[in-house]
C-alpha cells in the first residue's frame, strides 16, 4: 500500500493521491499522570530526605543554642557588609587567578606537546613541574608562599600575602589546567596535523591555526568545572591573613562568639557558584550535541 503511494508520488501524483498518503504519527501525548507523577515523586523524595535531616538537626537538644550561634539573622545582617566586601576581594582574586591559570597552563601544555630533540629540556621541565605541583596540596603551597616568600624581602617584588597567595594558586592550578589543555590537544585528529604539514605550515603555525582552536573548544566544559572549583578554593587565602569573605567572617566570630557570619559567607559562595555550575552543565550539554552532530 505505502509502496504504491510512493510510486505515484514520484510521478507527481495529484492531491487525490496526496490525501491517501498516511499521515505522520501524531506526537505521543503524555497523560497527566505520566507527566506529573514522576515530578511529584522527585519533589517528595528530595523533601523527605532534606526534611528528615532538618528535623533530626532541629530536634536535637542543643539546637536552640546552635540556632542562636549560627543562624542569628541579626548577627548575619551586622556582619554582612564586611563579609560582602571580603567576598568582592574573593571574586577579584578569582578572576585574576583564572586568567593566570589559563595562560600559564596553556604555555605548559604547549611546552609539553612540542616535538623535536631541541625542545626536550622544556618537555622535561613541564613533566617535573606538573608532577610536583599536582602532588602538593594547594593549602600547603598557599602557606609556604604566603608566609615564606614575603619574609625573604625579594627586591623588586611585592611583599603582600595576597600577591604570593594568589601566585601559589596560579602555580598549583596551572598544573591541572595544563593537563586539561594537553588532553584537548591530543584529542584533535592526527589527520589535522598531516593536512597542515602537507600545506607547508610550521609546527607553531599548525598549533596556532589548526590544533589549538579545536583543542580549546574541546575542553571548555572541563575548564569551566575547574573555574567553579577555583571559585571556592580562593577562600584558602584566608589562612595567610588575606581579608576575604571567610577571614572577615572569622574576625566577626572572634569578636562576638557568634558564627552566623560564616553562614552568611557560605550563602555568598553558593550564590556565586551555583549559577556557574548550571552554566557549565548547559555548555557541556551543547558541546555534546555539537559532537554528536559531527558524528552523524
Amino acid at each position, binding site marked *: 500500500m505505502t509502496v504504491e503511494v510512493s510510486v505515484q508520488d514520484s510521478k507527481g501524483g495529484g492531491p487525490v493521491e496526496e490525501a491517501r498518503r498516511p499521515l505522520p504519527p501524531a506526537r505521543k501525548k503524555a497523560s497527566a499522570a505520566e507527566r506529573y507523577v514522576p515530578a511529584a515523586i522527585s519533589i517528595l523524595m528530595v523533601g523527605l530526605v532534606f526534611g528528615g535531616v532538618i528535623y533530626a538537626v532541629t530536634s536535637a537538644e542543643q539546637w536552640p543554642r546552635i540556632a542562636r550561634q549560627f543562624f542569628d539573622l541579626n548577627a548575619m545582617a551586622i556582619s554582612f557588609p564586611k563579609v560582602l566586601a571580603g567576598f568582592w576581594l574573593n571574586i577579584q582574586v578569582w578572576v585574576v587567578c583564572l586568567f593566570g591559570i589559563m595562560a600559564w597552563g596553556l604555555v605548559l601544555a604547549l611546552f609539553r606537546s612540542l616535538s623535536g630533540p631541541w625542545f626536550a629540556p622544556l618537555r622535561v621541565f613541564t613533566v617535573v613541574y606538573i608532577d610536583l605541583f599536582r602532588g602538593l596540596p594547594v593549602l600547603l603551597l598557599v602557606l609556604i608562599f604566603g608566609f615564606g616568600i614575603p619574609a625573604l624581602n625579594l627586591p623588586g617584588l611585592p611583599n603582600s600575602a595576597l600577591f604570593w597567595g594568589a601566585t601559589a594558586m596560579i602555580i598549583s592550578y596551572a598544573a591541572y589546567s595544563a593537563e586539561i589543555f594537553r588532553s584537548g590537544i591530543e584529542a584533535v*585528529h592526527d*589527520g*589535522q596535523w*598531516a*593536512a597542515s*604539514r*602537507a*600545506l*607547508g*605550515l*610550521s609546527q607553531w*603555525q599548525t598549533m596556532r*591555526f*589548526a590544533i589549538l*582552536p*579545536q583543542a580549546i*573548544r574541546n575542553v571548555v566544559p572541563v575548564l569551566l568545572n575547574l573555574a567553579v572549583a577555583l571559585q571556592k578554593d580562593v577562600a584558602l587565602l584566608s589562612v595567610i591573613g588575606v581579608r576575604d569573605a571567610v577571614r572577615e567572617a572569622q574576625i566577626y566570630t572572634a569578636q562576638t562568639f557568634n558564627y552566623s557570619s560564616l553562614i552568611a559567607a557560605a550563602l555568598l559562595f553558593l550564590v556565586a557558584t551555583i549559577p556557574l555550575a548550571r552554566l557549565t552543565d548547559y555548555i557541556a550539554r551543547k558541546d555534546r550535541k555539537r559532537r554528536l*552532530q*559531527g558524528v552523524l
Partner: protein
Amino acid sequence: MTDRCISISGVTKYYGNVLVLDDVDLDVGRHEVVCLIGASGSGKSTLLRCINGLTEFDHGTISLDGVSIEDPSWGRNGIYRRIGIVFQSYNLFPHMSVMENITLAPIQVHGVPASEAMAKGRELLDAFGMGRFANAYPEQLSGGQQQRVAIVRALATHPQVLLLDEVTAALDPELVGEVLAVIRRLKAEGMTMVIVTHEMGFARDVADRVCFLDGGRILEQGPPKALFSAPENPRTQKFLQRIIEAGRL
C-alpha cells in the same frame, strides 16, 4: 616519458620490522596520470606519502624535476608548495570556513596578501562549482562537497603535482561521481597526478598508466587497457578477479 617529473628509485621503507616498501622504482612524466592499485596494506598509500615527504623512507631517492626531495635547497616548504595532497578523510579544518580553509596556506605560508588570496580562492571555488559555499563550514557540506573543497585547498598553492589518497573511499556511492569529475577535469588541464584508488573503473578511465602493488613492490604496470584486460602477473590476475567478483570493475 622524456620529461620526467617525479623519479622514485630504490625506495625502501620499514615500519618497525615490517617491510612496507620494497625497492620501489617509478617515474612519473609531466602531465601523466598514474594510478596505484592493490589490496589494503600493499604499500600504495605509504608510497604516496613518501613522495611529498609526509612519511620518511629508509633507503632510495625520490626526486622532483631531478632534485631529491630531501635536498636542502628546497627550503622548508618547497616540496609542499610543489606537491599537493588530498586525503581520504578530507582533513578540512572544521573550525574554519571554506574560504579560510583554502586561503590559510597561501596567506600564512606563502605570504600572499589576504585580499589577493581570497580573490584567487573565489576564482578556484567558482571554477569547481563551489562558489556559493565560500562562507560555509565543513560540517554543513556533504562528503563530496568537502572533498572538492579539499582538492581546491590543495590547488590553492599551485602545485605541479597532485597526490590523491583514496579520495573517494569515504564517500557515499552517489557522491563519488562529483569528485571523480573534478579529477577528470584536472587531467584535461594537464595536471600531473598520482592517484591511489579502489575505483577500478575510474582508474581505467583516467589513468595513463596503472601500477599494481603487492607486498610493497610494483608487480606490474602498464596502460590501463592492457593491465585490466590481460594482466600478466598471476597475483594481478587474482586481485582483478576478486575485484570483478565484487562487482567493482
